[in-house]
């Protein structure tokens, strides 16, 4: 009697985009050509209905999108939902994507809007709104201030805590730059602000974080 080694051998689960899961699995290892394509090529294939290309695109950017969302909303459950929303919106809007544009900042723009809309809709209070309107450092050297001999042992927990006190939008910009190493140009496109605004904003955010962290450590 022939015995199947897999209890589900006769079941072909219909996977995403109508592709059978097993077919997808076998294709995954046989399609280095698709995985090697740049974003533009993957988008072109996706627009022609190629589910494999879309999957490669998702896997390429899902970690970035998820972590960006998590830092904005500070909830894994919400971040997962927002990641799904982001890719769904991106998928629907793929036909409007300009071929001469870069996909990453375009996707980040969608992610930013999703995250900020969630914060607005869930009425999450952004603390320290307007805090960055304070004048940045202009202290004279002689004044005893945060630069005093405070030994810094900056832990990630402390930094996360300080970041949590920033408004979500500013935290988002800061992390796009320093955690995800995005260029000013890409950040500007992602948040819909001019580059000069981003540079100025980052300057103020850094200074504010430094002051907040110094206060915490000296306390």
């Amino acid at each position, binding site marked *: 009697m022939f015995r199947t080694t897999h209890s589900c051998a006769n079941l072909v689960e219909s996977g995403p985009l109508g592709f059978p899961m097993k077919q997808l699995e076998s294709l995954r290892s046989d399609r280095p050509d698709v995985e090697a394509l740049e974003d533009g090529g993957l988008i072109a294939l996706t627009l022609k209905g190629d589910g494999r290309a879309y999957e490669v695109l998702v896997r390429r950017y899902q970690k970035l999108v998820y972590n960006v969302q998590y830092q904005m909303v500070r909830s894994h459950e919400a971040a997962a939902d927002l990641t799904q929303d982001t890719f769904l919106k991106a998928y629907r809007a793929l036909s409007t994507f300009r071929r001469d544009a870069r996909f990453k900042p375009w996707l980040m*723009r969608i992610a930013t809007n999703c995250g900020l809309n969630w914060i607005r809709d869930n009425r999450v209070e952004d603390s320290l709104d307007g805090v960055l309107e304070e004048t940045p450092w202009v202290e004279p050297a002689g004044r005893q201030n945060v630069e005093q001999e405070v030994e810094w042992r900056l832990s*990630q927990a402390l930094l996360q805590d300080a970041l949590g006190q920033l408004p979500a939008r500013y935290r988002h910009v800061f992390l796009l730059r320093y955690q995800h190493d995005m260029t000013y140009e890409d950040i500007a496109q992602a948040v819909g602000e001019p580059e000069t605004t981003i540079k100025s904003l980052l300057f103020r955010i850094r200074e504010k974080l430094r002051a907040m962290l110094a206060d915490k450590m000296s306390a």
Partner: protein
Amino acid sequence: MGKRDRENEAIDDACTRARCTLESRLEGVAPDEAAEAETRAHLTTCRACATFGEQMAEIVAAAAALPQFDVSEALTQRILASAPASRPAPPAASMTMPLMAAAAALWMYLLVVVSVESVDGLMSWAVSLVLMVVLRLIIGGKREDLAVEGG
């Protein structure tokens, strides 16, 4: 302005320049040699600015080292499964002209065939106007759904 005030102002200017250079370094912008030399010299005498530079560098480094979470396979499959089981919608603009042409042709036909002086003529006008409004709403709604700035 007294001598002390002028000295303080000079110190402030030196600190400002040094901190500008330190900020530039953080952004990966290489300062010119003169500014770099001036900053190095200043940092040896100004503990406040030296600490400023150390703290800023530490913040940036800590941010770069923040852990990133991996995405579970379950979430990946959820994302893929949520995409509509068809091609992404074609650009709305490509459908606009044919639809508008069809609507215009229908309107002309009704106008020519049926006179406005009869009840049927008035009905044909009403039908064609409703048709055009509905088509406009459909096209406009699809454009709003798909439009994402930055693409």
